[in-house]
C-alpha cells in the first residue's frame, strides 16, 4: 500500500470505527442504532430545508477547521479558536449594529472587524510563543476563558445592562432570500461562499507564496528554517494572526448570517473545539478541511433530529465525534495493524 493511500485510509477507518462504537453505545443503552442513524440521515438530507440548514452549519466549521489547520502547518496548536471565534462574533455583531452604511461598505467592514478581533486574540499567544517560548496550548486555553468573560461583559456594556446585542442592520447581513427560498426557507446564507473563498485563500498562501513556504518550513523544523535565514519569530506570529483571523470570520458567520446578534453565553459554542476535529480529519489541508467540516457539520446539525424521530439523545453525535478524533489521533496503531495485515497477505 502506498503511503498516500494509507493517509486517506486512516481517517476513513476512524470514521467507520467511530460510527460503529456509537452504534454499540446506542445498542447497550437500549436504543435502536439503525433507527438512530436513519433519523440522523433524515436530519441531514431529509428535505431541502434540512440540507440548507446543514450547509449553513458547515460554514463556521470550515472556518474553525481552517484556523486550526493553518496554525498546525507552522507547528502550532491553536486551541484558542473557540475564544477567537467568540471575539469575532462580538466584533461583527457590534459593527453590524452600531453603524449605518451602504451594504458594499458595511458588510465587508463587519467581516474585517471580526477577522481583526480574532487576529488580535491570536496575536497575543503568537507573540508570547515567538519571544518568550511560552507554550501556545496553555495560553490559548486561558485566552478562551478571557474571551468568554470579556465578551459577556462587553455585551452587557453595549446593551446597557441587557443580555444581548441589538439586531444588526440589514446592510451588514449575510442573509440571502435567494438561498433561503431555494432551500424551503432555511437560514442558509452567503457565509458558505465566504468560507469557501477562505479555503482558496489558505491554499494560495500555503502553496503559491513565499510566505506560505516559510510557514510550512517553520512547521517542519524551526531550527533549520532559522539557519536558512528565515525569520522564525515573524512566521510564528503571522501564523497565529492568520489562524485567529479565520476563526474570527467563523464568528462573523454566526453574527451576520445565522443569528444576527449575540447573546451572553454561559459556556463555549463548541465550534472551535470541533474545529480541531475538522482539521485533524482533513490532515490540515484546505481541501481536507472542507471534507472534515462537511462531515462534522452535518453530524452536528442532523443530530437535532435524533431525539424526535428515534428518541436518542443528541449527545450520541458528540460521542461519535470525540471517538473519531481519538481514533485519528491514535493513527499510529491503525498504521501498524494495516502493515501487519499486509504482511500476512504477502506471506500467504
Amino acid at each position, binding site marked *: 500500500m502506498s503511503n498516500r493511500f494509507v493517509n486517506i485510509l486512516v481517517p476513513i477507518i476512524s470514521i467507520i470505527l467511530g460510527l460503529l462504537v456509537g452504534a454499540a*453505545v446506542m445498542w447497550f*443503552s*437500549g436504543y435502536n442504532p439503525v433507527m438512530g442513524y436513519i433519523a440522523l440521515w433524515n436530519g441531514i438530507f431529509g428535505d431541502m430545508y434540512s440540507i440548507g440548514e446543514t450547509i449553513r452549519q458547515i460554514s463556521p466549521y470550515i472556518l474553525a477547521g481552517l484556523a486550526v489547520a493553518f496554525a498546525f502547518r507552522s507547528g502550532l*496548536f491553536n*486551541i484558542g479558536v473557540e475564544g477567537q471565534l467568540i471575539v469575532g462574533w462580538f466584533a461583527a455583531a457590534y459593527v453590524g449594529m452600531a453603524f449605518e452604511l451602504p451594504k458594499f461598505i458595511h458588510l465587508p467592514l463587519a467581516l474585517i472587524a471580526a477577522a481583526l478581533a480574532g487576529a488580535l486574540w491570536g496575536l*497575543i499567544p503568537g507573540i*508570547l510563543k515567538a519571544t*518568550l517560548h*511560552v*507554550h501556545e*496550548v*496553555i*495560553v490559548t*486555553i*486561558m*485566552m478562551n*476563558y*478571557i474571551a468568554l*468573560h*470579556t465578551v*459577556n*461583559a462587553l455585551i452587557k456594556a453595549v446593551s446597557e445592562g441587557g443580555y444581548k446585542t441589538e439586531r444588526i442592520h440589514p446592510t451588514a447581513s449575510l442573509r440571502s432570500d435567494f438561498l433561503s427560498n431555494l432551500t424551503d426557507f432555511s437560514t442558509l446564507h452567503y457565509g458558505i461562499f465566504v468560507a469557501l473563498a477562505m479555503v482558496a485563500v489558505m491554499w494560495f498562501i500555503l502553496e503559491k507564496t513565499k510566505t506560505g513556504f516559510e510557514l510550512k518550513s517553520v512547521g517542519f523544523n524551526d531550527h533549520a528554517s532559522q539557519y536558512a535565514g528565515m525569520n522564525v519569530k515573524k512566521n510564528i506570529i503571522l501564523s497565529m494572526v492568520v489562524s485567529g483571523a479565520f476563526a474570527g470570520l467563523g464568528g462573523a458567520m454566526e453574527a451576520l448570517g445565522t443569528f444576527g446578534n449575540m447573546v451572553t453565553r*454561559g*459556556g463555549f459554542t463548541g465550534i472551535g*473545539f470541533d474545529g*480541531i476535529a475538522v482539521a*485533524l480529519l482533513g490532515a490540515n489541508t484546505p481541501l481536507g478541511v472542507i471534507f472534515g467540516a462537511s462531515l462534522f457539520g452535518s453530524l452536528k446539525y442532523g443530530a437535532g433530529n435524533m431525539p424526535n424521530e428515534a428518541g436518542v*439523545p443528541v*449527545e*450520541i453525535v*458528540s*460521542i461519535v*465525534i*470525540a*471517538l473519531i*478524533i*481519538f481514533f*485519528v*489521533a*491514535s*493513527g*499510529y*496503531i491503525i498504521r501498524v495493524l494495516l502493515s501487519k495485515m499486509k504482511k500476512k497477505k504477502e506471506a500467504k
Partner: protein
Amino acid sequence: MSLLEIVYFIIPLTISYAAPLIFTAIGGVFSERAGVVNIGLEGLMVMGAFTGILFNLFYADTFGSWTPWLALLVAMAVSAIFSIMHAVASITFRADQVVSGVAINMLGIAIALFSVKMIFDKGQTDFIQQSIPRFNVPVLHEIPFIGPMFFTGIYGSSILAIGLALLAWFIIYKTPFGLRLRSVGEHPMAADTMGINVTKIRYIAVIISGGLAGIGGAIYSQTMTNDFGHATINGQGFMALAAMIFGKWHPIGAMGAALFFGFAQALAISSSSISYLENVPAVYFHILPYALTILALAGFIGRANAPKASGQPYIKGNR
C-alpha cells in the same frame, strides 16, 4: 457588610471553591511530572461530578450520611478507568497527547449528558439529598478571629484536599516512586537505562490523575451545585490545569494557586455586595486566574518550566 463579616464570608467560600481545584490540579501534577500532558482534566472532572451525583441519588437511602463519601470513591474509580483511555492513546498508541486530551474532554461531557438524558429524560439530574456536610472543627472553631475564618462551617472535603497536597508532596519528593515519576518526566531514556519501566510509571501517573480529577469533580458537584447538568463543571478542569502551571508543577504550589483561584472565584460572585468592590466589574475577577496564568508562563511571576519530556511519547531506541 463590615470588613470582618466579609472576611468571615469570603475565606470559607474560597476554601470550598479551592478544594475541587486542589484535587484536580494535583492529579495534573502527577500526570505531567511523568511526562504526559493531561488537557483532559476537565472531562475527567465532568465524569467524576456526574458519577458522584448519580451514586448519591441512587444509594442515599442505603448508605445515609456515608453516601457523599462513598460517592467520592466511586467517582474516583470511574474517572480512573476513564483516564486509561488517555493513557492508552498517549503512551501506547503514541497519539498527540493534547489531541487525546481534547477527545477526553468532549467524550466526558458527551457521555455524562447522554446518560443523564437516558436515565432522567431531561437535561439535568434531580437534586441530591445527602450533600457533603459542613461542620465546625471541635475546640478550634472557638478561637477568636481564626476560628470563624478557618474552622467554622467547613466541608470535610476541604480538609482532605489540604491533606492530599501534603501527601502528594511526600510521595513525589520523598519516596522512590516519586523519584522514578519525576525522572520519567524529565529524561525517560535515562530512566529506562536505569531499569525503570517508563510505560508502567506513566500509566500509573495518568490513572492517579484520573482518580484525583474524579474526586475533584465529585466534590464540586456535591458541595457547590448538588445536581448535574451541562454547566456543572464549566471550566473548573481548565482552571485546575491553570493552577497546576501557576503552582509550577509542584503539589504545594498547586494548592496555593488553587486557593488563590478559589479566592478570585469567591470574589467574583460576592464583589457586588462588598462595599469597597461594588464598583469593580465582576469580569476582572472572572478573568484574573487566566490572566495570571499567562503572566506566570511568560515569566513575569517567576519562570514556570514544564517537565522536560512532557508531551513526548517515549519510543524505545529512539534518540
